Every structure is written in C-alpha cells, then in structure tokens.
C-alpha cells in the first residue's frame, strides 16, 4: 500500500470576530489549500471531513452546509469531533480512508466561529466541558483544569510561574512574525508575571484566546500526490489516545498520559526517536500545557520541561524548536481549526517555505494536538 501525503494547506487569519458566516470562513481556507496544491481541481477531491466543536455552531450538522458551499457534492462528507483535537482526528480518519483505498484525495476542513455566541454563552459551554454530573457542579473551567496540573507540578518538580511565563514570552516573539496570529504584540516576562490571576497559578498571559478561524488540509494517496504537487509532505507516524474526562480520575496530575501514549504510537510507526524531530507544533492552550508537552513527547525527561524553556532550546535556533509560529497562545485557538493550523505550519516548514520563521534544514516535523484537559491526544509525524 502506498503512503499518504499532504498536498495542500490553507488557513484564514485567526481573529476575535471574523464578521462572516462559517461557510465563508471555511471557503477562504479551502481556496488557499486547493491553490496551494497546484495541480488540483475541486472535482479531484473525492471526500471531505469537517471538524469543529458543535456546541458553538448554530448550524445543525455543519458538514452538509460546508460541503455544499465548497462545491464538494455529491462526494461523501461527514463530521468529526474531539473538541480541540478535532481536525487532527479528521486527518487520522482521512489517512485511514486513503490507506484503505476508499478515497484518493480528502479535504479536512476545521473551523470555529466562537464569536457566534455571547461571552456568557461561551462560558456556559466551557462549564459543560467537564464531567457535567460530578465536576461541572463545582464550577470547573478549562483554565482551572490545567491549573490543577500546574500546582501539582510546582510541588513535585519545583516548576515555577516564571518558567510558565517564559513560554508566553517565546510565543509572542514569534506570533508578531505570523500575520495570521491574533496576538500581535511582544510581551515581557514582567508583564506576564504581573498579570491578573485567572485560575492560580495561571494568569492572563498563561491562557490562549478564543478566536474565529478555519484551516484546510488536503491529503492524497502518495502516487496521486506526486502528480498534484512537487512538494508532497508524507505522514509517517500517527498516534491517538484518550484519558478520563473527570479530572479526579486522570492517570497523572503532572503530565498528560494521552499525549505520552499517542507519542509512543507515532514514534513507533515512524521508526524515529524524539531527537530526530526537527520542528514541533504542540498544543499550548496554556503555558503549562507546552511545558508538559516537552516531557510527554520525550524532548526532555519528566520534570525537566521548565528547565527546557529556560535553556531557550525550544526557540527557532535551539536544538528543538517548538511553536515557532506563535502556537495557540500567539495565534488564538478556534477549537476545530487549531489542529489543521498546526499541520499547516509543519508542512510549510518541511517544504522550506516558512520565510522568517523557517527552521533551517527541517526534514521531520511533529504535531501534538490535545482535546479537552488531556482528554483526547493526537500526535502526527510528517516527513519531507
């Protein structure tokens, strides 16, 4: 069986309020991906997968509405959801469809228009992201969930608030160079440490922003891919895992076990070690999440993530560049679009087309995309 490759990538700018409909938002990312692919007609796409977190949508069953607007009828389309990891779950499903021979070319469209709802409505949905029976009734939010991990790590490993703040300082250094990022200002360590508390020890700049945005990744069978583009980027490893929804039952409170397991599977399939990764996109919905990702992906030992950010080795010229497009902290986090945006960055890096944000000579890239508070974990590895 032949390989599966990414042939086209597209992404809208991530913004506070896009001012257009979800169909129009997706069209912009789709057009960019089709044109990016080069020698590809819309009718060559023989299936589409649409990914978002449905509780933010007014449209029931968005896949139908979006496939029609993109001109993808009568080809099959369906919807995939794993909250913040939705679009890399879509990519995993597309990989299976292509590998099995059921499809040759699949478009994975991820989107979220969080401004569709009022902030009260968004906060109500955030409350329901926890186990609604036994944990939501206490007033649990996403930042509080990650803050529980941060506190446990401060005790066990001596991780500091300053180390977490340094993740945001790095993020803002790169998001100002990414025109599609929501956060266009460099912040200082002092600003981060002095910001108001959201869920202690997490403060304002430890948290990513809600955003509107869409992404599109077009995948093809490797033989077809060579005819579509001169620069196909192969998927060489996929891993996926889950952990408990309830925070009390997490396998660990100092790392995300679903990420550890997904990474183990992906490295095994790709036949590589963590040191072989040249550039990585990790799910930094909060600064603490990036520090845990360093460890869970094997970029450093458990407990040493805080020291890794201090060493500056995850900057663009370091040994292990991470989130050099600004990450979620810098780009904003339109839930269903985020995984596709991470993949787009890695594909552009491996093609050598990332301009000011190019990691020199990058050949192998990794995407770590997490849904919920360590609930769903997807790790995907790409190679030139």
């Amino acid at each position: 069986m032949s390989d599966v490759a990414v042939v086209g990538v597209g992404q809208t700018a991530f913004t506070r309020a896009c001012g257009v409909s979800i169909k129009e938002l997706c069209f912009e990312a789709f057009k960019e991906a089709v044109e990016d692919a080069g020698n590809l007609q819309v009718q060559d796409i023989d299936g589409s997968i649409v990914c978002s977190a449905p509780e933010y949508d007014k449209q029931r069953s968005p896949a139908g509405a979006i496939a029609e607007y993109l001109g993808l009828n009568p080809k099959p389309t369906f919807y995939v959801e794993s909250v913040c990891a939705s679009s890399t779950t879509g990519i995993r499903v597309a990989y299976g469809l292509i590998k099995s021979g059921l499809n040759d070319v699949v478009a994975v469209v991820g989107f979220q228009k969080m401004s569709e709802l009022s902030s009260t409505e968004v906060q109500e949905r955030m409350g329901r992201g926890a186990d609604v029976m036994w944990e939501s009734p206490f007033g649990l939010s996403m930042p509080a969930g990650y803050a529980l991990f941060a506190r446990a790590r401060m005790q066990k490993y001596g991780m500091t608030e300053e180390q977490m703040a340094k993740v945001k300082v790095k993020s803002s250094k790169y998001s100002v160079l990414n025109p599609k990022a929501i956060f266009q200002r460099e912040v200082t360590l002092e600003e981060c440490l002095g910001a108001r508390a959201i869920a202690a020890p997490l403060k304002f700049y430890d948290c990513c922003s809600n955003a509107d945005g869409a992404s599109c990744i077009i995948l093809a069978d490797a033989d077809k891919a060579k005819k579509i583009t001169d620069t196909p980027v192969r998927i060489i490893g996929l891993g996926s895992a889950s952990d408990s929804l309830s925070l009390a039952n997490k396998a660990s409170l100092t790392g995300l076990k679903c990420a550890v397991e997904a990474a183990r599977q992906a490295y095994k399939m790709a036949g590589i070690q963590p040191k072989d990764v040249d550039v990585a996109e990790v799910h930094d919905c909060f600064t603490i999440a990036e520090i845990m990702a360093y460890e869970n992906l094997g970029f450093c030992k458990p407990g040493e993530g805080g020291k890794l950010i201090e060493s500056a080795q995850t900057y663009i010229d370091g040994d292990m560049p991470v989130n050099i497009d600004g990450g979620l902290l810098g780009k904003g986090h339109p839930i269903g679009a985020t995984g596709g945006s991470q993949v787009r960055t890695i594909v552009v890096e491996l093609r050598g087309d990332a301009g000011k944000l190019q990691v020199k000579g990058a050949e192998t890239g990794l995407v770590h995309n997490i849904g919920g508070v360590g609930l769903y974990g997807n790790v995907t590895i790409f190679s030139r």
Partner: protein
Amino acid sequence: MGFEKFGKVNYTSETKVKDFVSHLEKGKIEATQCRVCKTMYFPPRMDCSNCLSIDQMNWKEIDNEWTLLTYTKAHFAPTGFEEDTPYVLAIAESSEGLKTLARLSKEVSEDKVKLGMKLRLVPIKLPHDKTVYEFKLSG
C-alpha cells in the same frame, strides 16, 4: 428526577444514583460497592466497569480521610458561578484510594493550604433547597 438538587448548577436530573442526594441531605457521604467483584466507586455508580454487572451495587459510607493532591484558586468562573469567585477547587485521594474533585471550604485560609494536607468531605446546604459536598480540614 432527584439529582438536580446536587450542586449550584447541575445538568443531570435522571440517574440511577439519585439516592446519593437524599443520603447527602441526611449527612451521609456514600460510595457504591459492587456485590459481584467488590470494586468501590466514588463518585458512586450503579454499573460496574470492572465486571460489567448492572444494578448490583450496595451503598457504603466512605472512610472520609482524604489527602490533598492539587488545587487551584479560580478567579474566573463558568456561567452560574460568577458570584462565588474566587473559590478553591481541589482534588484529593481517600484512604480507600478513591479520588474526587470538590471545592475547598472558604473557612480554610489560603496560607494553611498545602499539598498532602488531610481533609474530610462534608455535606453542605445551598440556597434553593440544593446540596453539595466540600472539603474541610480533617479533625
């Protein structure tokens, strides 16, 4: 119906463990234990994921000795909890090896909070005839 009385904001009314609430109103905090394989559950459940038995559970009062594993002080709340901020959310593990999340009582001053400290779970009454449990200092 019955479970909607648990917690300030609740999304579940129908459940096979609704009696948990009436036990809580009587001051008892009860787990369930499977009669078939003896697995204990807290929060309680009537379906056993260990042996796949259904409705083979006995209610069992917990030992109520908990150790604080982690906590956060929430300054930002989901809809319905805004007036409560700031409040402390905690995860603790019991002497039986059960783990749960609940708020830490506002009676516990912040400088006293330390991971590893001993806690007990206490039923409390909320406005509008609602009830919930929270962690307090042990002893």
